[in-house]
């Protein structure tokens, strides 16, 4: 259910300057040097703590890991505290962790916190937590579990004493950042100090950090270098019901680690009542359920299936606006383009409605993952005021991808319109294509969506399908990501994590054998795994990069082609969403602007041209934002590519990979780059069949067309592509022309003509190329 963009996109986490839920907490606190006063109690606790053997006793006067003077936690015994004790500590005048006086804001928040449903069960939680190593916790959205449970754990775990942190994972970057910020406020500390977060390419933690929010992918990366996660004493897997790839793998890993480390506690938190599966998986762990704060939601179905779900959705929104009582609307659609389009249509229709009837104003706000943060912020604005005093109330209508299904809490929603679709990643090893397809949601998803209507008061959910279709056509649960993904990257990670037996690795939902087989083959062709299935040096290095194996291999081998600087830029560019903008009304202008950067040999080089121009503008100190606007480029994505590049550069430097460039005036400048591309993407090649039809090579073997967005000008019979787009038609997107000689030269394993099967014409063509190469080599030798 994660907000899924293109596979490449989700690989890298993009930095965001501000999180959407940015509670303003600029209460500045002066830094106070800690005194060396240490109580005897503390000393005793330290002596008795088996995990602090490595800990410096702090005789030099400044030591972390000690409580501030007079801390309310002084007499706490680790894993033996009670809710009462904790409450008392929270009520104190001074912050028990920093020793500084509590701010006014703290107490206001504390009052609100005590009202959360989860607070009533604090003692119950502690009892279960202390008794069991693994706990399954179910709390519906709005119960406060994500913010409160980690704090309860911190008060019981006392991480500052033993230098072991509490980690709480989130499937989404944005959530990790915003929740960390919120919890820092609740604990009255500065973000990045006691409470921090760690997301890909951004680590906001320090040596003081005791509670760390992080993406599940980030914890997995840490596990690669620290197989037992020894830095943590408790790990909380939040939103486990979303079943992201990383969460699934973490669960399997932690299942093993908890066996080996009896001191490590694990809490699996889920928002749905499908908890038995988690319990069963984790050795029948105890379950704790906290009810959410929800109101009843009335559900309506359509009598007939919709002919056009978007039209149906627009009609329904207008009907709600015209006829229903006050309350905001949440409409679920599938993608950016569809959402923007619908926003426009609804706005126009509402204007019409206002002219004709006395209905109130309506703010229509889009919401999707790639939306700029300041625009995402709009969803939290209050609804517009009525036109005149006593007039019909204004309304807010949020049109969102499934990002609003679980992860974001938007108050004020009373009406939910659910057409029943979302974009979902799907991978099939037989087709070898990972694609985002608009698919029907699951029953669980539909219930989750309906639940969004009942956050503030009783609500209504309008499902744009029949009750029969709901019962018969929707699957029970959304398939976990691990069943819908190409596992090449995952297998590489698992290898790096030291998992020897991939076949019997105890995943909650193991993937199909063919998916595993395909991933192993791919890694073998990329020389990341040897024929025995062992990690090679290249593979080990590739796993250090938060990239798809093909991209990582391309990047690692780029110094050999004297263009690692350029390939580094290109890798960054391929890791962010599309940098070219093409607004619906200004397609022609946008295309003209894109032509300014056009490189005849293909899209990769065109992107590189854009990046170089962008850096040039920034280098001259000009306004990059304005320049991007003029040229129909995404400033945000270009800047984020710039940031990703810097991060990747650091990894390259750490591993001693040279950053080199061919001289720009050299005629091989672009050829070298194209050859380096082949070194990574030799498995994504298409050969022209006739005029416009290409055929992807070897086992891929499907007829494709070049995506209309391509700039590829020259007549190339052989192209590499970055992405296979599967819709009702098949396209390859982001293509660059190559020479067939390079395939034979750079990927002889994959293009081995001896063992070639099928695609006879391709074999013949490659054979001719091979002969030509041989003749030329002979001629050279003869000279």
């Amino acid at each position, binding site marked *: 259910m994660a907000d899924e963009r293109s596979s490449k996109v989700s690989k890298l986490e993009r930095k965001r300057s501000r999180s959407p839920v940015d509670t303003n907490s600029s209460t500045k606190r002066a830094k106070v040097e800690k005194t060396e006063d240490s109580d005897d109690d503390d000393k005793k606790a330290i002596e008795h703590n088996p995990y602090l053997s490595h800990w410096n006793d702090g005789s030099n006067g400044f030591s972390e890991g000690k409580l501030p003077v007079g801390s309310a936690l002084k007499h706490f015994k680790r894993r033996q505290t009670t809710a009462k004790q904790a409450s008392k500590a929270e009520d104190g005048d001074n912050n028990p962790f920093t020793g500084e006086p509590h701010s006014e804001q703290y107490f206001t928040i504390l009052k609100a916190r005590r009202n959360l449903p989860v607070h009533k069960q604090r003692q119950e939680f502690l009892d279960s937590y202390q008794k069991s190593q693994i706990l399954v916790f179910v709390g519906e959205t709005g119960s406060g579990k994500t913010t409160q449970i980690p704090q309860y754990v911190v008060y019981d775990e006392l991480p500052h004493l033993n230098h072991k942190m509490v980690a709480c994972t989130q499937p989404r970057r944005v959530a990790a950042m915003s929740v960390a910020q919120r919890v820092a406020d609740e604990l009255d500390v500065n973000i990045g100090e006691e409470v921090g977060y760690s997301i890909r390419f951004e680590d906001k933690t320090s040596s003081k950090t005791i509670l760390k929010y992080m993406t599940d992918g980030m914890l997995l990366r840490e596990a690669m270098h620290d197989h037992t996660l020894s830095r943590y004493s408790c790990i909380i897997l939040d939103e486990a019901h979303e079943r992201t790839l990383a969460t699934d793998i973490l669960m399997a890993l932690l299942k093993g680690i908890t066996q080996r480390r009896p001191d490590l506690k694990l809490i699996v938190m889920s928002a749905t009542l499908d908890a038995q599966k988690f319990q069963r998986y984790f050795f029948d762990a105890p379950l704790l359920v906290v009810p959410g704060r929800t109101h009843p939601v009335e559900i309506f179905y359509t009598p*007939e*299936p*919709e*002919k*056009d*779900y*978007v*039209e149906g959705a627009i009609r329904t929104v207008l009907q709600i606006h015209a006829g229903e009582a006050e309350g905001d609307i949440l409409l679920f659609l599938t993608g950016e383009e569809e959402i923007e389009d619908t926003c426009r249509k609804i706005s126009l229709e509402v204007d019409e409605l206002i002219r004709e009837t006395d209905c109130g104003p309506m703010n229509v706000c889009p919401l999707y993952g790639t939306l700029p943060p300041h625009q995402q912020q709009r969803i939290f604005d209050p609804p517009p005021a009525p036109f005149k005093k006593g007039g019909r109330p204004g309304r807010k209508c949020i049109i969102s991808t499934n990002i609003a299904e679980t992860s974001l809490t938007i108050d004020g929603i009373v009406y939910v319109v659910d*057409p*029943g*679709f979302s974009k979902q990643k*799907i*991978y*099939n090893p*037989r*087709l070898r*294509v990972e*694609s985002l*397809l608009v*698919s029907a949601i699951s029953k669980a998803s539909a219930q989750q969506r309906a639940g969004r209507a009942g956050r503030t008061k009783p609500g209504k959910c309008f499902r*744009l*399908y029949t009750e*029969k*279709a*709901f019962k*018969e056509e*929707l699957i029970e649960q959304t398939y976990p990501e691990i*069943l819908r993904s190409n596992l090449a990257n995952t297998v590489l990670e698992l290898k790096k994590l030291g998992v*020897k037996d*991939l*076949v*019997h690795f*105890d*995943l909650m939902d*193991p*993937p*199909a*054998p*063919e*998916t*595993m*087989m*395909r*991933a*192993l*083959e791919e890694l*073998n062709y990329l020389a990341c795994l040897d*024929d*025995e*299935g062992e990690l090679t040096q290249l593979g080990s290095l590739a796993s250090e990069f938060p990239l798809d194996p093909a991209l990582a291999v391309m990047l690692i081998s780029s110094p050999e082609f004297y263009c690692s600087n350029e390939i580094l830029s290109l890798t960054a560019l391929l890791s962010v969403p599309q940098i070219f903008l093409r607004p619906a009304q200004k397609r022609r202008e946008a295309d003209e602007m894109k032509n300014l950067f056009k490189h005849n040999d293909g899209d990769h080089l065109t992107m590189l041209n854009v990046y170089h121009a962008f850096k040039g503008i920034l280098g001259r100190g000009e306004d990059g934002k304005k320049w991007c606007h003029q040229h129909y480029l995404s400033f945000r994505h270009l800047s984020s590519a710039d940031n990703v590049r810097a991060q990747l550069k650091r990894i390259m430097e750490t591993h001693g990979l040279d950053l080199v460039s061919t001289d720009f005036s050299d005629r091989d400048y672009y050829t070298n780059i194209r050859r380096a591309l082949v070194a990574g993407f030799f498995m994504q090649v298409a050969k022209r069949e006739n*005029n*416009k*039809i290409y055929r992807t090579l070897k086992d891929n*073997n*499907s*007829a494709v067309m070049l995506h209309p967005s391509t700039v590829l000008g020259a007549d190339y019979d052989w192209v590499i592509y970055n992405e296979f787009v599967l819709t*009702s*038609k*098949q396209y390859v997107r982001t293509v660059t022309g190559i020479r067939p000689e390079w395939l034979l030269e750079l990927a002889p394993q994959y293009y081995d003509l001896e*063992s070639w099967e099928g695609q006879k014409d391709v074999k013949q063509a490659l054979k001719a190329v091979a002969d030509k190469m041989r003749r030329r080599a002979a001629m050279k030798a003869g000279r």
Partner: protein
Amino acid sequence: MASDEDDDYMNMTFGEEPKANETSLQRRQRLKREGEIKGRVKSKAELAAEEREAREAALSKSMLEGAQAKKSKGLAMMAKMGFKGGALGSKENAGARVEPLRPEMKDGRGGIGLDSERKRKLRETAESVEKKVKIDENEFRDRVRRECEAARCERQVYAAMKVCERMDEEKQASSAAEGEAPGKKRTLSTRPLKSIPVAWRGLVRTREVERDQRMKQQSSTPRLPMYEDDLEDEDDKKAMGNTLDSYALVQDLDEEDPELDEFNALEADVKLKQLVEYLRKEYRYCFWCKFEYPDNAMDGCPGLTEEDHD
């Protein structure tokens, strides 16, 4: 091998022998045609269909079986880890997935359930069509023959009715000539329908109904100029079609006539039989001989049916 080549060395044909009877013009046309077929850019729909087919073929073939699988390095690695077919995962975790998920391509913006609804309707119509299609050739031939027969019969019924009418008129005329004064002819149209024998009453009735409708239509859709032109004389009116012919309507045209309905409901051959009998009885006329016999014995007529007259 070498001997084969030796045998062949005098062969003067190069590749396929051109057809002897093909003229250069024909050849050019043929080549053009072939070129067109080869060079034709397939329509998007055709391409999409081909892709779909290829996709389906690929999707339904497991990669774990067949010759290809034996060569797969990936499978070899998995075998090394102890893979023996079936699903992955720990042994306790039974019921894991063996088949990969199938991607379902969605065309257009149809809502959930629309496709299955469409399919259901399509199936239903297909089924009902199927039922109709289940007619074999013999049945068809039979049916056509029966239809022809019926049509012929109907025509004969009509002809017989006409004969009846004619005979009746003749009879009336002769009786009038015998008894009453000539010129006081009673037209059929004014005669009450019920007084006409049911055998041929239908003929008159249909004619009358048609005339009635025609009249009504004429009077309800008058020509545009509805004013009376004083300058028009009778001839003008006639030429402009403005004359309103006054018809004497049959008095009981609108009345129900169960007797006639019953007769009309009969099969054509039964009706014909009745008509033939009626003609024989009333007028000593044989419909098949086309002859009015002088006496009731009707000497010389072979029989009642058409076959008798063959």
